[in-house]
């Protein structure tokens, strides 16, 4: 059992990993991520990539909704901006993937700032609806601006490439997606150790008080929007490289709701929660698929019920977590951790 930890310097107090146990577990986790693609089969590898993309986008939304308290129903739209940017750039310029992904993030961030502009005047649900309007407009642009986006047919793109290497298989994509996901989550963690991140949290807790304390609301709200959409843009770009096709229907409104649900189920305002939520919500349909395949010999109708079942489970998860566990999976995780670190002294 570990009891109390006295910190003797500010560095130690601010550190992300505070104890040696944490450091060991974190190193083991990274090692597992590295070894995973060599052991997993194609299906697991595919899932790993999907979870990686979801983690990036959920972390982005968590910055905006969980930490700054601004709800956004536009996450899928921002991802679409990133996806289309990557698709267009790789078709028309042939730039390598680090460049296209950064440009995708930047363009999405610019769109995010534009969408965030009303956030000084309207907030709460009105803001959610403003972002909803933005996602309607973005969908319209994706579908109608045919010379750039290819209309309803969308764009298909070449595999990601860098220095003559092409990343065609899921195996290759894993080594782009997962390191990026780790990097971006760590970056987000670092943001919340600076003035900027603390300003976000102050705005979430009470925006008027934050303003009185000298935080420029417009500035920081827009920054939060920009940061969040940058994450979404990168995730959308990876999505485009991974599926190698983008259409207006790749980024529907239900996807925005999916990411909001991931943030809530994971735990709002908790980066670990975002990761858990993203993984959990991505894997649920797959688990359900496995269940249906297992049940089909006994109930031949099982596959028909899968998609409605998924809708019901999805909704029930959102409602259930909000009513019974508002702090999400992260809280459950902490409870488990506390149990082990206090064992055997707590009943």
């Amino acid at each position, binding site marked *: 059992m570990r009891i109390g930890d006295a910190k003797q310097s500010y560095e130690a107090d601010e550190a992300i990993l505070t104890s040696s146990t944490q450091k060991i577990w974190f190193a083991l986790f990274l090692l597992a991520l590295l070894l995973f693609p060599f052991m997993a089969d194609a299906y697991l590898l595919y899932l790993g990539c999907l979870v990686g993309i979801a983690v990036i986008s959920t972390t982005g939304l968590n910055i905006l909704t969980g930490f700054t308290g601004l709800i956004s129903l536009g996450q899928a739209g921002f991802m679409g901006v990133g996806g289309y940017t990557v698709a267009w750039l790789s078709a028309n310029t042939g730039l390598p993937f680090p460049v296209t992904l950064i440009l995708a993030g930047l363009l999405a961030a610019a769109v995010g700032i534009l969408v965030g502009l009303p956030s000084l005047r309207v907030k709460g*649900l009105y803001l959610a609806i403003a972002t909803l309007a933005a996602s*309607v407009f973005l969908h319209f642009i994706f579908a109608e601006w045919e010379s750039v986006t290819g209309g309803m047919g969308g764009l298909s793109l070449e595999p990601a490439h860098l220095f003559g290497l092409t990343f065609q298989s899921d195996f290759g994509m894993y080594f782009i997606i997962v390191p990026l996901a780790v990097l971006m989550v760590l970056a987000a963690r670092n943001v919340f150790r600076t003035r900027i991140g603390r300003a976000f949290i102050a705005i979430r807790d009470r925006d008027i008080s934050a303003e009185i304390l000298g935080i420029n609301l417009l500035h920081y709200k827009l920054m939060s929007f920009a940061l969040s959409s940058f994450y979404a843009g990168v995730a959308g770009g990876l999505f485009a490289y991974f599926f190698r096709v983008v259409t207006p229907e790749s980024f529907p409104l239900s996807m925005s709701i999916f990411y909001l649900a991931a943030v809530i189920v994971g735990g709002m305002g908790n980066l670990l929660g975002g990761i858990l939520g993203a993984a959990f919500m991505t894997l649920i349909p797959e688990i359900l698929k496995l269940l249906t395949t297992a049940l089909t010999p006994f109930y031949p109708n099982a596959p028909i019920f899968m998609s409605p079942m998924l809708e*019901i489970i*999805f909704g029930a*998860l959102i*409602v259930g977590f909000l009513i019974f566990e508002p702090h999400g999976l992260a809280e459950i995780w902490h409870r488990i951790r506390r149990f082990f670190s206090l064992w055997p002294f707590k009943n």
Partner: protein
Amino acid sequence: MDWLFFGEISLAGLAMGGLYALIGLGFVIIYKATRVINFAIGEIMMFAAYLFLAFAGGMEMSPWVALPLAVLGGSLLGGVIEKVMIRPMLGESSISVVMVTIGIASILVGVVEMIWGADPQLLPGFLPRKPVFIGEMYLAPKIAYGFLIGAAVLTIYLLYFRFSRGGVALRATASDQAAAYSMGINVRRVFNLAWVFGSLAASLAGVLVAATGGLSPQFGAIGLSVLVVVIVGGLDSIVGALIAGVFIGWLETVAGAYLGGEYRMPATFAVLAVILIFRPYGLFGTHEIERV
């Protein structure tokens, strides 16, 4: 410009707008009393329309029996939702409550798809088929009679809220909860009643809209148009919902007819964006003043 065509389109749009006003009214009642933005209203409409389908189509009841039954079922659903899922969220942040209603919407879509399947369906026709002419302008009979039923119910609602005991209790709760409590109004019951009445209006509109345009599990998307209506009108204003409902219905139909179906949503959302920028609390909504 062909004025006759414009007139016919406008008329159809205004009639559709009448139904939007009815749904908007249902939305505003719930918001006024409980401060909950109900993203599931489109799905409640859908559920009622499917109930109508089951009663009138599956069980072959007379449509005039099936309609009240379906509407009753829809309002009961609203009451149950409030009791089971919204009540425990009392005092939570508005983000959480909205997300609960989004979750409810998803559950309802799943349930409907499980019972009635995912394919689009047609409701048995129950409105008169004789074409309606106003002057020289033709109006599809389903839309015209749908509008008339909707308008009649709207009037009853307005009178009810103005004069009845329950209506006064609801308005009292909306304007000051604590004062309403101390005057002996059962605020919990008012909350529940607001959901029942709101869902009732939505359910009726749901059956009428589905009767003109068909029904599928994606029917709930109409909730997005209604969201535009209530934001433009002002979330807590009944008059606003009526005016904005008629206007948005008209705009959507005219934009669809002249620019093409893909312009319907962007046209109404453009109005929404302008309103949000210049009058964030809607045309008739109350401007909330915040204090620290």
